[in-house]
């Protein structure tokens, strides 16, 4: 082995390329990034640009054809009272859903982060991930079965003697409908069910990061369980809660399937987009409606960033 060279001889193109990449790591980086960035840049950003472009076109009211000329007419249409109603209703729903989700998700995340160990921890993780990943439509469908007038909730209410109570609640104007599956409260429940799981994991991560020593210090200084929770745990976990709320809020904002299947056919932003591009054939107005959640989410993300949510993910 006396004469073995320190550098092996090149054996062909593959070796030469390896050497080139070794000398120019940037080249490899560019080659790796080019295909995915081209895809996302052209397909995704390109489409978003087309969306924006489309929203500045308007539809000719007589022929129903899209006129490809720059105009603000569509945005003026967007600001009509009935459309503002849709936007406000959607914002209210998304906020309520996010709040309710936080209330339901927090105990799960808190238990999983602080008390679950080993087997239980894995079980909690699966217990959150499986419903989160399960088929969206199947989950919505399950609720149609549950909330139906002849369904399981009515049955339970009747057998628990609460049937009249349920009927009276459904008579309330803002609350009810002919059955739970055609009532706003039904829409709300299903929104919470579908989008709440997205909140649990970011919350759990944030709670896991709260150091035990701080809790001990708080107890040593004489704080009660509730005080420790309110003054130590909650402020430290808040960025994670906000981070989790991004998904729940954003996904509720754009959903158009749930209000279509469960609810009193009151319109939400997503549903408006869907109907304007479909039956109404008004692509520009649909595009303008789709821009609304983008703007809302940009504002939401800016606020979340200020609250430190991005350090929490």
């Amino acid at each position: 082995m006396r004469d073995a060279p320190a550098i092996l001889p090149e054996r062909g193109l593959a070796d030469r390329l390896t050497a080139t990449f070794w000398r120019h790591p940037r080249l490899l980086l560019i080659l790796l990034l080019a295909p995915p960035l081209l895809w996302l840049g052209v397909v995704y950003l390109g489409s978003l640009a087309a969306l924006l472009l489309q929203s500045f076109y308007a539809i000719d009211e007589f022929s129903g054809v899209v006129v490809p000329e720059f105009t603000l007419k569509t945005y003026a249409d967007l600001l009509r009272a009935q459309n503002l109603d849709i936007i406000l209703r959607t914002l209210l729903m998304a906020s309520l859903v996010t709040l309710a989700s936080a209330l339901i998700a927090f105990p799960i995340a808190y238990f999983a982060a602080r008390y679950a160990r080993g087997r239980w921890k894995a079980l909690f993780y699966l217990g959150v991930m499986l419903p989160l990943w399960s088929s969206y439509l199947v989950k919505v469908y399950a609720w149609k079965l549950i909330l139906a007038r002849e369904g399981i909730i009515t049955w339970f209410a009747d057998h628990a003697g609460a049937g009249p109570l349920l009927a009276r609640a459904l008579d309330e104007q803002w609350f009810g409908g002919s059955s739970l599956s055609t009532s706003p409260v039904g829409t709300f429940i299903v929104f919470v069910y579908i989008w709440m799981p997205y909140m649990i994991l970011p919350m759990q991560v944030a709670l896991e990061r709260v150091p035990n020593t701080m809790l001990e210090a708080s107890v040593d200084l004489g704080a009660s369980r509730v005080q420790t929770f309110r003054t130590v745990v909650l402020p430290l976990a808040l960025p994670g809660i906000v981070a989790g709320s991004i998904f729940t809020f954003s996904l509720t904002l754009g959903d158009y399937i749930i209000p279509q299947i469960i609810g009193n056919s009151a319109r939400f932003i997503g549903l408006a987009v869907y109907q304007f591009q479909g039956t109404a054939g008004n692509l520009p107005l649909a595009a303008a409606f789709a821009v609304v959640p983008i703007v809302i989410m940009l504002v939401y993300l800016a606020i979340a960033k200020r609250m430190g949510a991005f350090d929490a993910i």
Partner: protein
Amino acid sequence: MRSDRASLGLKIAAGAGLAFLHLPILLIFLYAFTTEEKSYQFPPPGLTLKWFAVAWNRADIWPPLYLSLQVAALSTLIAMILGTLVAAAMANSRFFGRDQISLLILLPIALPGVITGMALRSAFSVMEIPFSVWTIILGHATFCIVIVYNNAVARFRRLHGGILEASADLGANGFQTFRHVLLPNLASALLAGGMLAFALSFDEVIVTTFTAGQQSTLPIWMLTELVRPRQRPVTNVVAIVVFAVTFLPILAAYYLTRDGEHTAGAGK
């Protein structure tokens, strides 16, 4: 005060929360066996197995099923290639614009699907592209990239750079290292990412309605049945199939990636 014991209230709240997440899905199974086809009567007046045979013989279910499988397979393939490339680039290097790229990958799934859908629909309209299988795949692959990326990048980070150097020291060129060292180490993470992407694509409906035109994937078929029900238990049978096709890959993906990834953050 002992701090390592959960209070009863917390246990109940956490347990009730998990039950809320899981119980509704069970009803799908129950209603697939009901003898009542016109309503969602509870409890079912009788139980029968006939709906499985009826669903099997319904000619309108098979083409959407094939289309969904085709779309999911091709979207997954594209997402796996693109997601792995981006993960390889992002894992071990710092460069200008890195944060922007990770935001760009995440956006298609963080923004509501209706935006992605409407954006693609606008693009097809502006560029006069007719709807086809490929317009569906274009959308699906875009939001599946992040799934593969998340799984792959986590594995890349855990992979010790030393073994790649060792491979080079032993005389392997980059391609041999990729084939014999990198790929075997990445395989299970890629498989997991691919299966999650497949599951996500197979049951996606929000973006698909905007990119499918007149074509019908299985979720779109289900959606029309939900809006205008015909034989309701048949929809339940299909729902069970959709549930199984998404549930099993998710479970498998979990077992493929669980070592050392008990912390959250993987997944969507």
